[in-house]
């Protein structure tokens, strides 16, 4: 059964709000803390920096996809 656009929009808006709160926390704490360490790596060893950069973006890609899928499931369960 196809969902109504209004119901999908409502789910996404709720998901967006929860996600925005989590992202603010993540950017302010985790990414800011990583900043100095990554800058040090960039200055001293480009090879280590390149490995760390690749691992971080792949890790974040997988983690955020899991988070958005989970949020969407929870929000849809509550709105239906």
């Amino acid at each position: 059964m196809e969902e109504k656009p209004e119901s999908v929009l409502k789910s996404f808006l709720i998901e967006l709000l929860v996600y925005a709160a989590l992202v603010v926390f993540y950017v302010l704490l985790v990414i800011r803390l990583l900043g100095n360490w990554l800058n040090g790596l960039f200055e001293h060893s480009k090879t280590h920096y390149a490995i760390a950069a690749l691992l971080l973006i792949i890790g974040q890609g997988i983690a955020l996809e899991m988070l958005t899928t989970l949020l969407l499931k929870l929000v849809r369960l509550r709105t239906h």
Partner: protein
Amino acid sequence: MDFLISHTHISPLYLVTAGFIIGMLGGFFGVGGSFIAGPALFAVGVPMNFVVGTDLAHIVGKSIVAAKKHRALGNVDLKLGFIMVAGTIAGVEVGAQGIERLKHLGQASVDKVVGITFVIVLLSISAFVAWESWQTLKMQRKRGGKSKKSAGTSSKTADKGDESAFAHIAQKVHSIKIPPMIKLRASGIKEISLWAILGVSFVGGIFSGFLGGGAGYVRMPSMVYLLGVPTHVAVGTDLFEVVISASYGTFSHALKGNVDIMIALVMHTGAAIGAQLGAASTQYFHGPKIRLAFVPLPLIGAAIVIYGLLSGKNMK
């Protein structure tokens, strides 16, 4: 927020919002969105060599999940993907070396040359997509007219919009008999020269290494119209290939000091949610009209780059 690696000061809200819009467009139109991501970074003062490398890193984070989903749907031709990886990586390296050469001439040269090339590519994409969707719409209208005369025969053929408009080009490529010839079962191609695949992927790789992003805007149409790969397999295989080649590109550019991973990480937080919203929206829109709606987007990207070039904001 200060980004120490690229020596820039950008609001994280700007990056997250830009990422969100790029992710949404990517999810909706099935493209990486580097035509907006690159100009968006350039517009806030990120030097062009960092724009290229950082955009590649951001693409890795986005494509890895999409590729996994397409693999589960059976839309990935692994044999084609691995062959294309070889051509793309060689191309990416050539593109990255091009940036290195330009860096020796100074940052202003990098910004100017990459910026102008970017504008030319964006205008070409926009013109091509407008022309292609117009052709498809025209063809569908003709088919619709015929189907009214012979009721009940056109529902399936009307969906195959791009099939007949460019099929002759792919047939010509298939007729090139330079060995080794290979068979691509998953793509339904009986025989094609290995060199044709490597050539297409190499050119896409140069665009990717020189302009950043996954260069799906070049490789995707090339796979469909030149190699004759079905569109859904082309999308899945392109994503699979982009994960590997963009990872290589990120690593290569990071070694050369062209990646600010902090910018990529912040931007990607917006892209992850935007991609879901964009993908979910596609169930309410269909056909070449979507591609026609895509036409202004590269033009926006081109306008931002032209503004950056003319205002000299990045000419450090």
